[in-house]
């Protein structure tokens, strides 16, 4: 397959497309705190009351992490095939595309993060639960290839229930595919930062999500190999409080840090500067 195809115009971030009227109120699913929708939006969908991180769309992460006007999205024309002829898969894809957009479960882009050129891939849970099939694997492989060619650091933000069952063992193989690309980046000393959001489980957590040179997680995110329901079933008892949360993984040494969404851009920039031998950014060093 060709690595480069014609590229589309970058998409507008969701918040610019949706004009939020000033008098709409929203309620936090976690603590019940009620506030202006606009206030939630300005706070990158983190509850001003309790700090609960609501789910963001992939395009919102692009807008949040990359500098304005620098975003160039890639491979927007990749679509899922139906390699197994799996029952109802084409109709499920059509439905997901209509509801969540045409980009399958990941957006990939090149842009600048605090002035540093980076390649960024963001999974979108809204598209079939962020499930990883061939399109997700191929987009990550191509993004990784771009990083190899231009020596740009790679950042992947995960939000996924795991492999996409409807593509069978080919979905499973995307784990090996993505890991092979990351190994190439590693051998060439190109930094890779993995950011885990709610949820990151299954085949995604057991491949690229856990392979970062730095691994960051959003507060409260559920992260694990097996989903909590499966483990509860095998155990036949309730899971301990806070099991498989970002904080639990931090305690068990599985992630480098838990980082609130508002801090993500600064922390990622700081890490990338350290790992690529760049001087500290103005205004960030002391923050």
């Amino acid at each position, binding site marked *: 397959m060709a690595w480069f195809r014609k590229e589309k115009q970058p998409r507008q971030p969701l918040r610019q497309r949706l004009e939020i009227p000033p008098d709409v109120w929203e309620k936090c699913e976690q603590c019940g705190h009620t506030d202006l929708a606009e206030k939630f939006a300005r706070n990158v969908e983190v509850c001003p009351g309790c700090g609960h991180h609501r789910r963001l769309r992939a395009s919102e992460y692009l807008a949040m992490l990359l500098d304005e006007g620098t975003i160039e999205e890639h491979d927007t024309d990749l679509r*899922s*095939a139906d390699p197994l002829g799996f029952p109802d898969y084409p109709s499920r894809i059509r439905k997901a595309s209509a509801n969540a957009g045409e980009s399958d479960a990941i957006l990939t882009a090149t842009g600048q993060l605090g002035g540093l050129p980076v390649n960024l891939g963001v999974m979108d849970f809204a598209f079939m639960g962020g499930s990883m099939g061939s*399109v997700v694997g191929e987009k990550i492989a191509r993004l990784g290839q771009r990083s190899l060619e231009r020596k740009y650091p790679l950042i992947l933000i995960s939000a996924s229930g795991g492999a996409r069952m409807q593509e069978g063992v080919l979905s499973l193989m995307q784990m*090996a595919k993505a890991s*092979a690309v990351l190994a190439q980046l*590693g051998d060439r000393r190109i930094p890779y930062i993995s950011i885990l959001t709610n949820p990151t489980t299954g085949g995604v957590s057991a491949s690229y999500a856990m392979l970062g040179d730095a691994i960051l997680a959003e507060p409260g995110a559920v992260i694990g*190999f097996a989903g909590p329901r499966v483990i509860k079933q095998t155990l036949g008892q309730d899971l301990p409080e806070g099991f498989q949360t970002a904080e639990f993984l931090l305690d068990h040494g599985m992630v480098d840090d838990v980082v609130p969404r508002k801090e993500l851009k600064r922390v990622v920039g700081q890490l990338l500067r350290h790992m690529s031998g760049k001087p500290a950014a103005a205004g960030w060093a002391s923050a």
Partner: protein
Amino acid sequence: MGTTLLEFEKPIAELERQIEELRKSAEGHEVEVAAEIAPLSAKLESLKADIYRNLTPLQRVQVARHPRRPFTLDYVRLCMTDWIELHGDRAFREDAAIAAGWARLDGETVMVIGHQRGRDTKENLRRNFGMPHPEGYRKALRLMKLAEKFQVPVLTFIDTPGAWAGLGAEERGQSEAIARNLYEMSRLTVPIIATVIGEGGSGGALALGVADRVLMFEHSVYSVITVEGCAAILWKDGKSIEMRERAADALRITAPDLKRLGVIDDILPEPAGGAHADPEAAARTLHDALVEALETLKEIKPEKLLRRRREKFLAMGQVVESDA
């Protein structure tokens, strides 16, 4: 466990019983009875062949999980010499769901690493039904690195329902352990041959499966999810035969399916009646296939080997590139 019979194996067992009875009653009249037994034996062989040629995907799952099917250590015993098992991940503990060690194949040293199921309940408890904890994968990686250090090829055997899902496994980083193996196997500078000998269950199987050559026994299966799990998610019924059959068909988990999808390289034919009917014959097939594959791979320079391995996995998957 010698009596374990799958439903579709019953006609075979019935014929075997008839032949056995004839033999027993023959005392002193072996010659006359031999004439009666011969056509029955021929019938038995063709019955076995017939039944096994027409196995449904779900029946293959049952064969792949058969308690008498040869396991990793059976193949080690039957087609290798000079075996010495190695234990532990050097960090937490030994995990008996994966067996690993040095052996010789055709006189040459190899590193063998495979999932190991138990033949009976007691052994299955010790080996956790071949479902590794993170320590198992870390032991596997430690020994792959050891093989690389001494430039010895790695042979892996895949036979697991999946990686273990439990509290300790999560606490100790099941995801990281599997991911690390995928990463390191894609850059290990010695030949790797993986063989799916039984059930290839999801990420827990793939963690031993990133290889230059992936072989698969005819009636083995390899899947992203168990048929039970798939049926439970899609049709809220992981128990009934009908739903499990539907899932087994839909997931394309048989050796011919996987060959067509480009996930495996070669299918190893099984003796009539499956590998458990004649483990020695299955082991001979495996032995010859491994020797042949190793001979080819040993000729390839490390850089080229790695490039080919990487390209093979990078090519996996199917996408449509449209301008729509």
